[in-house]
């Protein structure tokens, strides 16, 4: 609840005006989460070291020293807020359990599988495309403009075809192993209280920004 209240007040400070009360209320959120999740303390200290440089630079370069200092504080608080919310949402479960989180969020099955396969396919395709482009550059560094596009198109299409045949084999293997029903071996879990609070806070924060910005 505290997070939701802080998020709403923070959203007000973004949209209406930055006053001292809103700043204090918004700064309660990082304190609250630091107690709950001490592991994010270290990266947060690094972030705020950079924030300190930014605040000093802003204060010195702003026409009015005090206004520049306050502007810097506001930006630093926003950085903290964004970092904490996103680190809570994206990294709280770890990459291996993203599928589990997507199940909990009732994301359609096809979209879940598509997400995971895309995530996996990026590295495979990146390696192949990179290798093909490097060899192309080494063999023919002085190509004309049209010829360069033509070669790039052929290389990309051939990488796509090779990867496609590999992905078709993978699909057959998945089907032979029992289909996509057994795609993930991760245990199905449920949202804990912290997840619900963070999620509710993020949704409230987003809605508040939309409503207050465009009301």
């Amino acid at each position, binding site marked *: 609840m505290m997070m939701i209240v802080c998020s709403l007040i923070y959203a007000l400070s973004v949209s209406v005006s930055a006053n001292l009360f809103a700043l204090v209320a918004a700064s309660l959120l990082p304190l609250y989460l630091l107690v709950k999740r001490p592991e994010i303390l270290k990266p947060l200290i690094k972030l705020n070291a950079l924030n300190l440089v930014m605040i000093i630079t802003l204060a010195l370069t702003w026409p009015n020293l005090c206004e520049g200092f306050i502007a810097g504080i506001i930006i630093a608080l926003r950085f903290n807020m964004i970092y904490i919310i996103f680190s809570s949402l994206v990294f709280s479960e770890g990459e291996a359990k993203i599928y589990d989180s997507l199940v909990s969020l009732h994301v359609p099955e*096809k979209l879940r599988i*598509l997400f995971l396969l895309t995530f996996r396919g990026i590295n495979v395709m990146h390696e192949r495309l990179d290798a093909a*482009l490097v060899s192309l550059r080494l063999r023919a560094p002085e190509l004309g403009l049209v010829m360069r596009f033509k070669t790039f198109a052929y290389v990309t299409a051939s990488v796509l075809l090779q990867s496609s045949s590999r992905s078709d084999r993978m699909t057959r293997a998945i089907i032979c192993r029992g289909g996509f029903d057994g795609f993930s071996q991760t245990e199905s879990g449920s949202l804990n209280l912290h997840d619900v609070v963070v999620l509710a806070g993020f949704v409230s924060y987003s809605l508040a920004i939309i409503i207050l910005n465009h009301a």
Partner: protein
Amino acid sequence: MHISEGVLSGSILITGWAGTCAGLAVGLKKTDMNKITRTALLSSGFFLASLVNIKVGPSSTHLSFLAPMGLILGWGVFPAMFVALLLQALLFHFGGLLVLGANNFIMGVSSLSVYLLFGKLIRNSDSKILVMALAFISGALSIILAAFLAGVFLTLSDSNFLTAAKLVVIAHLPLALIEGLVTAFMIGWLKKSAPEFLL
């Protein structure tokens, strides 16, 4: 091509998400489970296209593959782009999470339009020149359409963005030519080497 976070008005954001949800629902329904790995592959390709820079004179650009995606995936382009754009937003901050619906709608509609307009013609044509000409038009049109839709979204959000919207369309004209060329060569090659790849 990505519209940044915080630029569009609330009503346009909601419209974008509504269009994206509709496109996602149809796209997921029409995507066969056995073809999902291919959809994921194209989604990865779309994601990677933004990372591969091509030198053009003193500057460089990156492709988007809107037309090839549409011509290969058909309606499946909506879920494929949704996943790719989501990963781009999360990993590289291209676009954003709130504006994801609008970005997906803009690119999905552009890509789907060229599939509906030229997909059947390209699939049924035996003339290499005609296939390449149609693919060129598809590639160029998809970029112009996406830039135009982005401009419309910007202008509807705030009339002060009208100049910026015009600039977006004009700035994408050279990219449309490049994308047209690459699409022509790519689809021409695929039509010859693996015609079953084109939907």
